[in-house]
């Protein structure tokens, strides 16, 4: 398995109040699969994604990605892991406002070991002609495309998408999901998507449902749909 999450628990402590975000979660995803993690707010899906992305730690359990055990890594190793293996797509894009589209992508090509061509990726997301614009000169959907281009350009082993359509309208959301599916197919990138939107699970190879820090459903999807055919 490419992604192996075994018996993972996470507790948040705020003053005297503690909150268990993950309770012994087990999850496996094969390389090249799209996995959609569903769940309401507070279910622990973002915590799980962040732990897999190496930007948060867990108290118990192990996480292994492509044979690398994250839970045994120190800060420096986690940085190297994020640098080489992981691509992030955020709900609010998190672009650097005073860099152009091309430069926002270059932020990653600068540090990645074997990045893809910036032009190729920007063309793939349909933004090559907007490469000299600043984020504020783009629509929300276009900004999310830049965010995806930035994540993909390092040719990551694993693409983590945190509510990638959460801030977008229906049509734009479909375009973004289509783009993610294309990337999965063309580059063979393993993709984990967390979302509130149950309809998105139709494009996934694996569907996982979380509630109160526990997995209540984990199934394979035999009838994968193209995002154009999805409705919500």
């Amino acid at each position, binding site marked *: 398995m490419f992604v192996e999450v075994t018996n993972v628990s996470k507790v948040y402590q705020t003053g005297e109040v503690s909150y268990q975000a993950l309770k012994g979660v087990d999850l496996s995803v094969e390389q090249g699969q799209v996995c959609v993690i569903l769940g309401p707010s507070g279910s622990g899906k973002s915590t799980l994604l*962040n732990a897999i*992305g190496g*930007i*948060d730690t867990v108290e118990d359990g192990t996480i292994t990605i492509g044979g690398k055990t994250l839970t045994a890594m120190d800060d*420096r190793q986690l*940085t*190297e*892991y*994020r*640098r*080489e293996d*992981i691509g*992030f797509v*955020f709900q*609010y894009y*998190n672009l*650097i406002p*005073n*860099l152009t589209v091309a*430069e926002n992508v*270059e*932020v*990653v090509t*600068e*540090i*990645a070991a074997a990045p893809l061509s910036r032009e190729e990726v920007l063309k793939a997301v349909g933004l090559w002609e907007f490469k000299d614009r600043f984020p504020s000169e783009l629509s929300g959907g276009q900004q999310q495309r830049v965010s995806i281009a*930035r994540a993909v350009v*390092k040719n990551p082993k694993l693409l983590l998408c945190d509510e990638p359509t959460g801030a977008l309208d229906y049509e734009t959301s479909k375009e973004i999901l289509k783009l993610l599916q294309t990337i999965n197919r063309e580059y063979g990138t393993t993709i984990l998507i967390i979302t509130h939107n149950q309809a998105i699970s139709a494009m996934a190879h694996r569907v996982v449902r979380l509630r109160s820090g526990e997995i209540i459903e984990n199934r394979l999807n035999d009838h994968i749909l193209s995002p154009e055919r999805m409705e919500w």
Partner: protein
Amino acid sequence: MILRKKVLRSLNARKSQYIGSVLLILISTLLFSAFYSAGTNVTDSLQQFRQQAVEEDAHFFLQAPLQEEAAWEARYDLTLEERTYHDVSFAKDALLRVLRETKEIDRYALLEGEKLTGADQILLDRGFADAHDLQIGDDLSLPGGTFHVVGFMTVPDYIYPLKSETDLVKNPQAFGVAVVTADGAARLGDGSTFYSVTFGKDNKEAFKSDLQQNNFILRWIDKQDNQRMTFVDGDVKGALQVAEVLPVAILLLTIVLVSSVFSRLLKQEYVQIGTLYALGYRKREILRHYLGYPTLLALIGGGLGTVLGVLLSPSVQGMFASFYNLPPITGGVSLGVVLISLLLPFVFLLPATAYLILRVLRLPPLHLMSGQVTQPKIGRLEKRFRHLKLRFAARFQVRELLRNSGRNLLMIVGTAFASMLLLFGFVTQDSMDSLMGEQYEAIYRYNYQYLFNTFQQDPPQQGEKLSLAAFDATTASDKKTTILVYGIEPDAELIRFQDEQGARLDFQDNIMTKSLAKQLDVQAGDDVSLVNQLTSETVTLHIDRIADSYLGNLIYLPLDRFNELNGFPQGSYLGVITNDKAGYPADQLYSVTDSEELQAGYQAMIEPLRYMVFAIAGVAIVIALIVIQLLTSMLIEESQQKVSMLKVLGYRPKELYKLLLGPNTWLVLIGYLLAVPLTILSLQQMFNSLTEEMNVSFPIQLNAANFFIGLAIMLVTYQVSKLFAQRKLKKVSLQASLKAARD
């Protein structure tokens, strides 16, 4: 790195804040490179000149000519040179002191023109020549005939051309020096004779004591007591202090301001930093990126400041050379100074900003991206003043003040710093005015002081008798200082002292000036030990009263007691003070002091000081503008959402200005009020250290008029910077609040 572009664009987007920081760095490095170079070059040139010209260690006047000079030189391993001078009247009221050319000690240095070769040639000090419009090639008609001006010169014992060694101010309109050959001096007739000496080893006291037994020393002046020679050292020290203290102080202020701007920038970029983390950027890469900001500021400010400083340095040197009678000052700005000047901003800025960045980098990326860390916290003060019974506007302003205590403190510190700079000029001017103006006029009520070169016994033609002798004493800080002890008639009317309460002092008592009492830590009723400079004998004097005067290190005794103390003949005296000009023959006189001349000299000296006050005030206003403008622009940037929301709610621009910018007036006021005692204290310290070599001390004062002028300047400066702020407030869009809510 692509992120470099982000640095440039961010700086450009907030240029109003960063330009201020760059300007402050520029001012500090400019001051450092210009003044430090000038100060060290003047010091080096001065030292070189003093060595080449063989500066005297002391000079003295004797009752009778010195016999067997060579024997004295051999016995005490010293060099002696007999010197003569002629004080000749020049033009209407001026006096030209014509010195005979020397061979071994205090040799002249030619500044322009040709060296002396004939008996009809004369070299002038440039200040006097300029004041009297004399050029090389002119002929001067002096008592011995016509002298041809062949050049300009300087001599080490008249670097600051004062008529008397104890004077404070030069006046080239009234006094100047010249040098002629020995034959030329003979043409002028009999002159006054004195001796200059340099010692091969430390045996001054033995020599003086031997000399006193064989002859009678009328006056002995060590070089450190000779204002003509030492005044320049105090001034150079002042320039070096300006070069060392002011740039560091401005840089410290810059650090505080840049740190403040920068920590706000970091706060606004928490999400970006978290994203860079998530993208795999290493801490050191993020650190390096953010250090690009202060690096660029330091590079631009330090680079421009250093270049301007290098360009300005020759002018500062020229100023010294022309104010003092100095030989051309050689040496430009050294590579070392340029390097320090370039590095100084980095040394100050980088550690402070690195600390801020590292503090942010300690936060986990998730926290940074969540934006939770940037949520404003409610402070203890705010909680305490939760229920304010005030009008809404007042409550709003109080909340603004309470919430932004850091920024408020910065505003107070910044305005206090600028106010201090502004007040430095005012306080210096007021203190000098008080010392030379009010105090001098209130105490010294005579117009002329005549000092004779021998003891007088007959009653004076007019005026009152006085006598004086120089003594040494040890100060509370264990340093040697020279004291002039005067003997005056107990019923003297032409000198009047008061105590602190304003009561007139009686000259039956032994009276000490307050400046001296402070230095020696003496109270009325104490005894002081003094060492006679001529005889090296130690005497003890009981001090009855302290006079409220800062005009020199002086003690006044009744004349009879003075003569007894010094072993002088009963009833003798060495000087006369009078209101009317007296006709004493020149060969009987050691010196003549004209109060009007002194006042004119003071006015001439105070003139450049006034320009300096304006210049300092200009720099202070610029700094105040930078600081206030930077902080108000920061305030508006942070309040964008609030401003936008208030605009949406229908607030008029004027109401907005009042709400947001109103409280700052109080902060400017507090800053100014804090600056007053700080200025007085720091100037007191500075003058104490500068005047160590000068045997004077200054009462530090700030007059009410200048206090209010300073306050008005600061408030007007604030109003001007408010105009910039108002423009910025107008630009805040109505959508800002809605966008912010979505982000």
